[in-house]
């Protein structure tokens, strides 16, 4: 892929990000932050390439440490997001005395 194709993908993704993020309900801004945190750990791809590569052993070790760091984020980020989202409930109980509610 040449630089311009990559740049195009990047610019389009910025626009997609802009509209998608504005459509996120403010009540979920904390889970938004934790899930973006988890997905930004896709940097693990670079870390895996470094770890798997033959050659410079320094690079390999930096890669492995990066894999471990990114894994903290991936597992931690998705788990804490799931934990938060599980707490958001609608009022489902039919409320013992229903008068004042409209």
């Amino acid at each position, binding site marked *: *892929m*040449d*630089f311009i194709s*990559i740049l195009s993908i*990047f610019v389009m*993704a*910025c626009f997609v*990000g*802009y509209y998608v*993020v504005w*459509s996120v*309900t*403010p*009540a979920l*801004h*904390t*889970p*938004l*932050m*934790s*899930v*973006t*945190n*988890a*997905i*930004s*750990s*896709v*940097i693990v*791809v*670079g*870390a895996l390439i*470094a*770890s*798997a*590569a033959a*050659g410079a052993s320094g*690079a*390999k070790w*930096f*890669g*492995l440490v*990066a894999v*471990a*760091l*990114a*894994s*903290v984020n*991936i597992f931690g980020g998705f*788990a*804490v997001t799931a*934990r*938060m*989202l599980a707490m958001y*409930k*609608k*009022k489902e109980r039919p409320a013992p*005395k229903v008068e*004042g*509610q409209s």
Partner: protein
Amino acid sequence: MASHTDYIVALTPPSMGTGAEAVHAVNPWVAVAYLVSGVLFILALRGLSSPATSRAGNRFGMLGMLLAVVTTLVTHIPGAGESYTWGSSFVLDTSTLFEILIAIAIGGTIGFVTARRIQMTAMPQLVAAFHSLVGLAAVLVAVAAYLNPGAFGILGTDGNILTVSRIEMTLGAAIGAITFSGSVIAFAKLNGNMSGAPIILPARHVINLGTLAAIVVLTGMFTASGQAGPGENNLFWVVVALSFAIGFLLIIPIGGADMPVVVSMLNSYSGWAAAAMGFTLHNTAMIITGALVGSSGAILSYIMCRAMNRSFISVIAGGFGATASAGGEAKEQRPYKRGSAEDAAFLLKEADNVIIIPGYGMAVAQAQHVLREMGDILKEHGVNVKYAIHPVAGRMPGHMNVLLAEANVPYDEVFELEDINHEFSQCDVAFIIGANDVVNPAAKTDKSSPIYGMPVFDVEKAKTIMFIKRSMSGVGYSGVDNDVFYLDQTMMLLADAKKMVEEINKALAD
């Protein structure tokens, strides 16, 4: 700065030729797999438009990550890489795979256990800590790419790292380093390891701008230098070191009250770091994710700034909270009405509409569960109960919503500032617990107030205001006195928030 034409010239060679080691030109299915994983990440964020779809969204995110990791492993583990085509047999280098799986297991366990144990009140610290890890990982990947450019397919025909890749990887390392050190400071401030008060260095603007300029100039020099392989010169390392320093310098002068903006901003940086490394690796999943996360953090910073009526520049410049508390003139004692839990319970029971305004003080007092019980009792008495949340009610965007959700408050009883503010005129009781600045009318009237222009709740329109506060002496985050305390319809309930609500619940039950 490298001139425009230099850049264009630099762009052409990498697109063709050099194919031998180019990791990104392996198999078209690989590119598709990364693209799909990028799209799954978009769906993960899309799901957050409503709590009902959010859990499915989170699963899309996990799937996207799994796909990206498996694709990378399948294409890069030695023995599998070059010759891999669908259906062909290949021999895995199991020792490398084993090392990688151990790294994932160690990191994953730490992450998972932390995520399960963390208190919801500590969420801002956790997010700051996670940001620092993404930043550090980005730096390490950039360093690995610098040390072993061949593996990343960024080696030119002349044996040097490609010019455009040098810019991209230095940018990735620099942003990653800023994210790391900035997040470490933000974590220390939020976690209380470090005072929330701004630390003001003399001539800090000169130091900061000088450091930033040095980073830009050195990046340019590194890009332009003929020999840029490892060991040829130290420019790359100097840029990384300066970036660690600037992240630290940028965040120490920013006060605790502005931390929601800082955390959002660092969220954005971690995204841009991932995007820059995505450019280096020509990886669509990383680029799409980086753009998503970068925009997300930027938008959240903007929302937080707007909610505090601060400009982004003034937050970054720092120093807020250093002068405000000293500004108050000698306080004269003004008359106020103090109420008891029984008085409050009586009025609440008689009310038709009650709006509860929680602030961070409620979370500090751990009063959210008893507050929800109070809401339940009132609903049984036929009272219409709503919760009103200011964007800066917690320590990070949406924090208060999470805290209420944890206390089992249904999310459809919780409303944002602009959706509920017009309802205060028909409201019988505005119940303020642990909040202060967000109900201060000085934000609307007093131009000299440090919080002037900040959107606030119109609580003074309510028939009765109940204000739970520990004592009359303390003031809000901004250090400003609040006229609401002294209004005719205000009943001050002076006690620890949790104790007071418990007493109100007892009185309501009688």
